[in-house]
């Protein structure tokens, strides 16, 4: 007698959650990066994403390896240390019909890649740019990174004498229109913020505090699980409702719910927990970050949101067909055109 196979739940793309997994992770057990990868699997499944419309890009580091561990049916490229932004810019100019998920580390983005990071934000390339921020170099075994806190202690590296770079602050200064911070331990918030980022028109910077259990998980480290759990300060509760309508963000009262209009028509509800916080005010975001940093708080939520600036593909006035899919006849001008052109050089 045949036993009925348990029904696999398919999403509207006709895919099971299993269709969104990648190859087995080679990262340490318990590494924050793994939980981000599993949230990305969940998100893609929940949003009915077709893997073919996603490209995954990364730099170098433990974090940057993780695109291999989710969305195995999507094309991906684990590029060079700090230089995923340029690779992504080229790829998204070649094919602006795909959506990009970029994964970087704090070492990757905050040091060697700081320049490319900032220039990508100036160009507003359409990409969810996730920094898996553990305040340490994981893959090279425990050196301080640019985001390590001043005074932080590491087993081999000693005490960090320099102030850390705040990824969100750098993003705000560079003119990013979507700047968020979340915590890998807070799965729900990670999911909702990334979903919002996926709907964003340009570069959505998401700084995810993602503890390195091997080299930076001392309870007094701001990048540890214990610290994160204890000190997390949510700016708002973020809920995501996939839908078609567009809605506007307006200033709204503390304690109430606000629905934010997203670029692709889906909506994001924000619950503002702080009386004077306004996601549409860049300077307020900077000030709030500064205060949180001074107070040693882990501020999470969407720090800044503004999608008025066109993205790079829009600025380039690209047509509907991606450059990579243009037929040969559109790529090579005609013999007559060559002749006419050369007449000017006779």
């Amino acid at each position, binding site marked *: 007698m045949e036993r009925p196979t348990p029904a696999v739940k398919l999403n509207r793309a006709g895919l099971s959650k299993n*269709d969104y997994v990648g*190859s087995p992770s*080679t990262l340490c057990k318990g590494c924050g990066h793994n939980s981000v990868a599993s949230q990305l699997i969940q998100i893609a499944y929940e949003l009915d994403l077709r*893997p*073919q*419309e996603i*490209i*995954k890009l990364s730099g170098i580091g433990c974090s940057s390896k993780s*695109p*291999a561990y989710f969305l*195995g*049916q*999507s*094309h*991906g*490229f*684990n*590029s*060079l240390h700090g*230089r995923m*932004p*340029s*690779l*992504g*810019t*080229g*790829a*998204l*100019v*070649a*094919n602006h*019909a*795909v959506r990009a998920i970029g994964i970087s580390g704090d070492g990757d983005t905050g040091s060697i890649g700081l*320049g*490319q990071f900032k*220039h990508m934000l100036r*160009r507003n390339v359409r990409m969810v740019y996730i920094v898996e921020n553990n305040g340490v170099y994981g893959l090279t075994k425990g050196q301080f990174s640019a985001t390590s806190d001043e005074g932080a202690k590491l087993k081999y590296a000693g005490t960090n004498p320099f102030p850390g770079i705040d990824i969100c602050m750098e993003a705000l200064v560079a003119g990013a229109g979507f700047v968020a911070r979340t915590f890998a331990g807070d799965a729900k918030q990670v999911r909702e913020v990334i979903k919002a980022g996926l709907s964003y028109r340009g570069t959505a910077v998401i700084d995810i505090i993602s503890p390195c259990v091997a080299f930076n998980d001392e309870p007094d480290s701001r990048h540890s699980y214990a610290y994160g759990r204890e000190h997390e300060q949510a700016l708002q509760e973020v809920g995501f409702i996939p839908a078609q309508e567009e809605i506007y963000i307006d200033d709204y009262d503390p304690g109430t719910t606000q629905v934010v209009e997203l670029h692709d028509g889906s909506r994001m509800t924000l619950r503002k927990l702080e009386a004077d916080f306004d996601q549409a005010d860049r300077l307020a975001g900077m000030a709030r970050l500064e205060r949180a940093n001074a107070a040693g708080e882990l501020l999470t939520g969407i720090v800044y949101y503004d999608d008025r600036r066109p993205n790079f593909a829009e600025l*380039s*006035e*690209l*047509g509907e067909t*991606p*450059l*990579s*899919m*243009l037929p*040969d006849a*559109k*790529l*090579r*001008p005609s*013999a007559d*055109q*060559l*002749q006419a*052109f*050369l007449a000017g*050089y*006779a």
Partner: protein
Amino acid sequence: MRVNDFSIVVATANGTGSQTANLTLLRSFFKMGIPVHGKNIFPSNIQGLPTWYHIRVNKDGYIARKPSELLVAFNPATLHEDVATLPSGGVVVHNLDLHLKPERADLTYYPVPVKQLLAGVEVKGKIKEYIANMTYVGVVAHLLGVPLDVIEEALEHHFGKRRKLVDSNLEVVRLAHAWAVENLVKTDEFKVEPMNATAGLIMMTGNEAGALGAVFGGASVSGWYPITPSTSFIDALREYLGKLRHDVDGRPTYVVIQAEDELAAIGMVVGAGWAGARAVTATSGPGLSLMAEFLGLAYYAEVPAVVWDIQRVGPSTGLPTRTSQGDVAFAYYLGHGDTKQVLLFPSSIEECFEFGYRAHDLADALQTPVLVLSDLDLGMNNWMGEPFVYPDAPLNRGKVLSAEEVAALPDFGRYKDVDGDGVPYRTLPGNENPRAAWFGRGTGHDENARYSERADHWVQNMDRLARKFETARAMVPTAVSDERPGAELGIIAYGTTRYAIEEARDLLAANGVVTDFMRVRALPIGAEVRDFVARHERLVVIEMNRDAQLTAILRDELPEHAAKLKPIAYLDGMPLTAAWVAERLAAHLGE
């Protein structure tokens, strides 16, 4: 009389607008049907330092650099030095206001009262300074016999529709010409006469020709960062794409991005190549070094990319506005570990155009970077050439699988050597087949692009890449040769040295010394190069770098012939002259 056979050098200061005057002279000779070529020898600064414009006029078509016989002396800083370099019988056209004393009895001096001539001209300030250069155009036109209507045509070419500029420049030319007719008694022997050797030819810089080639190769994305002498390549690319690549609705079908540096420029090119668009960048030595890691990755991840390296003298900033062939070894092995890159060596504007589109076909067909090694001399100077031939084959996009093609396969392995030629099949992002995806990376991988540190996987993969390089040998442009009965010596060279070498061979032949010549047009070398080397007992390799870089590569590739390959290498930032080459060849044969 020396008709249609001489060299002129115009000595001015950078930033004085002499380029228009010089190009006007150059183009006038060209329009008179006389073979001609001009070389701008300029400093790496914006204003004030000395610059020289060398024009070689030669009825027999020799256009290599040749020490000048006529000097237009407009720069006080180099006046005496410039006069001293002239051979006996030479001519000096000098600005009277420089107070040059005609000290050499073996030269003819023609002073030009520039200030006086310009006194009546109705322009002010900076423009007046620029236009002052037109005085020597007028005087030289009279001395050599260039008709004024030809000068006008050349100015029209230069300024296009900006008639006002044509007229104001022409006014000065006419003034100076009339003054010269009235006041100068010609006592030198140099003269031009119309002939018919340039009919149907075009004149363009190598960078323009290469950029046009890229456009006809379907280049759609360019990331770049300014560096002399490559910047004009991208300037031209942008202009040509703007004219030739719009969709029916007027939208551009291309994007040119000024990157923040070369690290990003090549990243954009590799990203675009991976995503399936043809992409090109142009740079020079210092930029190429910053591109090294990405090009090594592109070699290993097998992503097409086209890089034009317009070589200048290195290392570091070196002589940024002087020419060389000094990046050959670096470019060939660019990347870490065992990498070998495909290099193309254009030597003319026709080849710049042809290699311009073929580089993209090769990069796609081989799924690898292709580096076109041009140089400042070719890239930034105007050269005559045959009108470019439209590509005779459709674009070769290489082994790209569509979703249906993937579906029809039992399995898809990104790095599988299905055809035995080392070139695997690839799929592009956006491919709808769920089995089409692959993960590009620099880390070790198996045939399915999966992470692997297994020794056998690494070796297999590297062996396949080596096999692919063997495939490249038969695909790259073949070397061209000219062999003559009774040759005592085989010459191997590449790129722009050909002009001095071709002339030197004729000089030697006139003295009864016969040589064969092979011009290598790409690396890796093909069988024809091996055969040429095998056929010759005596061989020299001529190149413009100190350490004989191609010689070393050839010795490495042809160890059985290594001892035969003798380098003649030289580098001082200036293009070779035939006299130098002939002398060195004669010396070599005498050894």
